[in-house]
């Protein structure tokens, strides 16, 4: 029996839940309400203000990825230097948010940020005074970072953990000070992890919709919200499909770009 036989369940799954839906999306994306072939929706997207929504989504996703990288890289480096069996609590604290439902996490964030929430209470106590935090772009960014940060930390951590400690010592031995060791050895060797982390964060971030709704309160309307709106509220499947395809192109382009940085894809997937 050929081994490919065992792949059949997945092939069937792929056809039913990936290939066929994509074909449907393509069909709706290139037709109008009457079912006739049409590029009107594409024209509409690029001429209306909806393009701005796409840019806002991409910008927020990039900001989120950047913040995750800046916060996550040192965290990963710190964790990689620790022995997992001796610092269990530390690892659990990093992983804990991932084990909780993301809606729950976002609602929790909402409670903390609201006008009479925990953070504002603290601000008042130290004399800064209450601030409007919920329903701002900053709140959306914070929520995205909060949700996606572990996806940045883990691949970088895994990549660093695989790194041979002797290589760092070899660099020191050859005269590199700590900064030079980082720039010339540690950082280049962790690139696969960084690429993997960026991919894992940017992709869900650019398609975000619930977070922007809960924390942005309609003030920050993202491309994901727009797609949801088209399908669920306005029932404009044609336009929704068009936007979905445009978003797909954005994602494919970003993955292709990242491939260039790490051609061997050494970072692998999440782990």
């Amino acid at each position, binding site marked *: 029996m050929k081994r490919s036989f065992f792949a059949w369940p997945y092939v069937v799954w792929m056809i039913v839940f990936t290939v066929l839906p994509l074909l449907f999306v393509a069909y709706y994306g290139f037709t109008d309400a009457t079912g006739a072939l049409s590029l009107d929706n594409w024209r509409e997207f690029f001429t209306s203000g909806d393009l701005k929504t796409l840019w806002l989504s991409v910008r927020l996703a990039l900001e989120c990825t950047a913040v995750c990288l800046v916060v996550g890289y040192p965290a990963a480096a710190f964790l990689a230097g620790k022995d997992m069996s001796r610092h269990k609590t530390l690892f659990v604290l990093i992983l804990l948010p991932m084990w909780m439902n993301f809606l729950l996490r976002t609602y929790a964030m909402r409670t903390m940020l609201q006008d009479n929430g925990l953070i504002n209470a603290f601000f008042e106590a130290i004399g800064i005074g209450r601030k409007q935090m919920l329903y701002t772009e900053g709140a959306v960014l914070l929520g995205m970072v909060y949700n996606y940060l572990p996806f940045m930390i883990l691949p970088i951590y895994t990549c660093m953990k695989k790194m*041979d400690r*002797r*290589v760092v*010592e*070899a*660099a*020191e*031995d*050859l*005269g*590199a*000070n700590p900064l*030079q060791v980082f720039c*010339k*050895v540690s950082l*280049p*060797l962790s*690139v696969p992890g960084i690429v993997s982390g960026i991919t894992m964060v940017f992709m869900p971030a650019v398609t975000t919709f619930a977070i922007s709704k809960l924390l942005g309160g309609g003030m920050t309307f993202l491309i994901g919200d727009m797609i949801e709106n088209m399908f669920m509220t306005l029932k404009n499947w044609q336009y929704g499909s068009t936007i979905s395809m445009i978003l797909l192109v954005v994602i494919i382009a970003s993955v292709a770009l990242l491939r260039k940085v790490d051609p061997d894809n050494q970072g692998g997937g999440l782990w």
Partner: protein
Amino acid sequence: MYDEMRLIELKGISKNFGDTQVLRNVDLYIRKKEFLTLLGPSGCGKTTMLRIIGGFEFPTEGKVLFEGKDITDVPPYRRRVNTVFQKYALFTHMNVFDNIAFGLKLKKMGKQEIARRVGRMLELVNMEGYEKRWADSLSGGQQQRIAIARALVNEPEVLLLDEPLGALDLKLRKNMQLELKAMQQELGITFIYVTHDQEEALTMSDTIAVMSGGRIHQIGDPKKIYDEPKNAFVADFIGESNILPGVMPEDDVVEMAGQKFPCVDEGFDKNEEVDVVVRPEDIMVVGQDVGMLAGTVESVIFKGVHYEMMILAGGYRWKVHSTAMQPVGSEVGLSIVPFNIHIMHREAVSGK
């Protein structure tokens, strides 16, 4: 103001990892241009000692002096020593040229000078033409050569080598031993070499420090260590032995020096070529007509408790220890109790 004879000096070095004491109050000095080997079984503290000299570990107690100056707290990148690591630790994100040029680039050396020096190093380690190859596309022996070149190109005062040949096969290891020794003599660099292989230590070193349990048991030139082990550990680790080639025609019989001897070793392949080890003190000198081998005494040295005689018998020059002296030129017989004949697989002799 330092003793010219002591380039590096370790004074009262102790090192603890948690509750385990890895080094216990070790004193050692290394002379300029010396090839010093730290020899001992795994876990004896030899690698830790090398890492303390390299600056990768800090001693719990004691001081490290370099040309008389205390460098105990100097980080590795400011020490005038370079290291060849056990598993090479090449930079896998760079090609061979950039690996070797790493240290020179940090010193902001000119491009042409770097290219010249790297080229010369590649020549020295017989790896010309490999500049553009990726470090991880090389075989173990080639990676080893690059690791040595990467360290040597910086022209260090001292080169530290941590079991650099451990991962190579026997034949390659033997060649590299000779090459390393030749390089050391040619460049006039001080080598501190860590190994558990006594034969390797004897082949290459000017001085051997035999270590065990975090202490140096004996330090001296190879001949002295071999001939006059200070204690049971050294005697056992660097055995004084007659080692001669033999064949096992069947169990409990070994053929060596043109003759069959009964022995007590079994489980060898039929006619397997083996190395036979007989301790000098295990050979009995008897009358010429009653011995297993007939031979002629070639030399006699008085060693205190016993005489050491070199006796030519069966085409082999036996080292024999005996309390009874036989004059040079006398015809004697040699006899060995089966129990005292030690048979080893050929490979096993390297000390692995």
